[in-house]
């Protein structure tokens, strides 16, 4: 069963492949994301984050979920040497972490409901487990940055988080929080690993760090990265899996 909903300002897909699956877990997962959006939306003037930024609410008083996200933001700002930061000019914007965090919560809801073969995708960030069927692993393509109908790599896995970061995604820029400038060098970044929230944060950090950031990803246990430079070269960490290529037509 596959459901697509617009939540958190983006299309979110939840795909579960158990034969007798009802839609209860999917609906619960989407409801959780809608709840998260009500807390963290930058566009909803009544969200907790909006009230924090207007000085109407303190983070410490904003409830356990906001406190937890703020704690994680501080943790990953330190872990990335400031390449990831949720604070800019005094404003709190945890969007770069909340998406991965929300996907992780959705996956946990599916797990609690017994699902072991699923894929959750939000804005190009993916948490997958198990198989889509026929005992084969899930297959995820890394899109060509210019030619949308092409994929430059196929990642094949039964248990993986995949996060992406790049230029002109949804028309907005990612700035280097340390300089306020738009990073140059990489136009598409994909980070894979065990945890979608960490992969998401690391993808943003690698995009800000540029090609030199691949060495930083090498030092993060369990994580690998594939990036495309502005000279249209693919660059990747030593452990990034080789392309699995097209599937034979009879499978």
């Amino acid at each position, binding site marked *: 069963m596959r459901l697509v909903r617009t939540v958190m300002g983006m299309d979110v897909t939840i795909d579960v492949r158990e034969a007798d699956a009802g839609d209860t877990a999917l609906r619960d997962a989407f409801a959780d994301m809608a709840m998260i959006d009500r807390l963290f939306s930058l566009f909803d003037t009544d969200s907790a984050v909006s009230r924090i930024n207007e000085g109407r609410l303190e983070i410490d008083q904003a409830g356990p979920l906001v406190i937890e996200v703020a704690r994680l933001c501080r943790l990953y700002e330190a872990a990335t040497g400031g390449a990831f930061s949720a604070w800019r000019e005094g404003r709190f914007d945890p969007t770069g972490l909340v998406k991965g965090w929300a996907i992780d919560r959705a996956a946990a809801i599916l797990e609690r409901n017994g699902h072991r073969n699923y894929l959750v995708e939000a804005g*190009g960030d993916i948490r997958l487990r198990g198989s889509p069927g026929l005992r084969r692993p899930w297959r995820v393509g890394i899109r060509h940055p210019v030619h949308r109908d092409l994929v430059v790599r196929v990642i094949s896995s039964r248990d993986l988080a995949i996060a992406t970061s790049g230029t002109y995604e949804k028309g907005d820029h990612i700035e280097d929080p340390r300089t306020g400038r738009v990073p140059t*060098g990489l136009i598409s970044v994909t980070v894979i690993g065990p945890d979608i929230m960490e992969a998401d944060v690391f993808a943003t950090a690698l995009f800000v760090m540029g090609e030199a950031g691949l060495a930083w990803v090498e030092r993060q246990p369990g994580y690998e990265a594939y990036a495309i430079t502005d000279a249209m070269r693919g660059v990747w960490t030593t452990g990034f899996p080789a392309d699995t290529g097209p599937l034979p037509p009879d499978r």
Partner: protein
Amino acid sequence: MRRALIVTALTAVGVGLLFHYQPGGGPGTATSVPPDEGAARDGTYTGTLESEVYGRVQVRIVVEEGRLVDISTVSLVGDSPHSQELNQHAAPILRSETLRAQSARIDAVTGATYTSDAYIESLGTALDRAER
């Protein structure tokens, strides 16, 4: 107006390289193409080299039998100095090594897309040249 045409062309590429391109104001060009297939002449057309924040971009299109059959990026060059200290795996992304998303049999896609104003502008001039 031209931007709307470009969006049409990009969409057409996405759905199978059809070229439903309406002549934009100028006199229609007679070709061997059936009249309802548009007025672009066969050939390869290169757009202008456009600068933007990430470097420079130039787009080339190929028109066969009045249909847009290929869009490629001639140059997409960054001005930023790259770190030389690393020896990561690297390879140019060649079109021959990529896969059509449909034929790759994938369940989902990830990765950023690059649709800068410079790219759109260069593609627009290439389309203009095909139409002339």
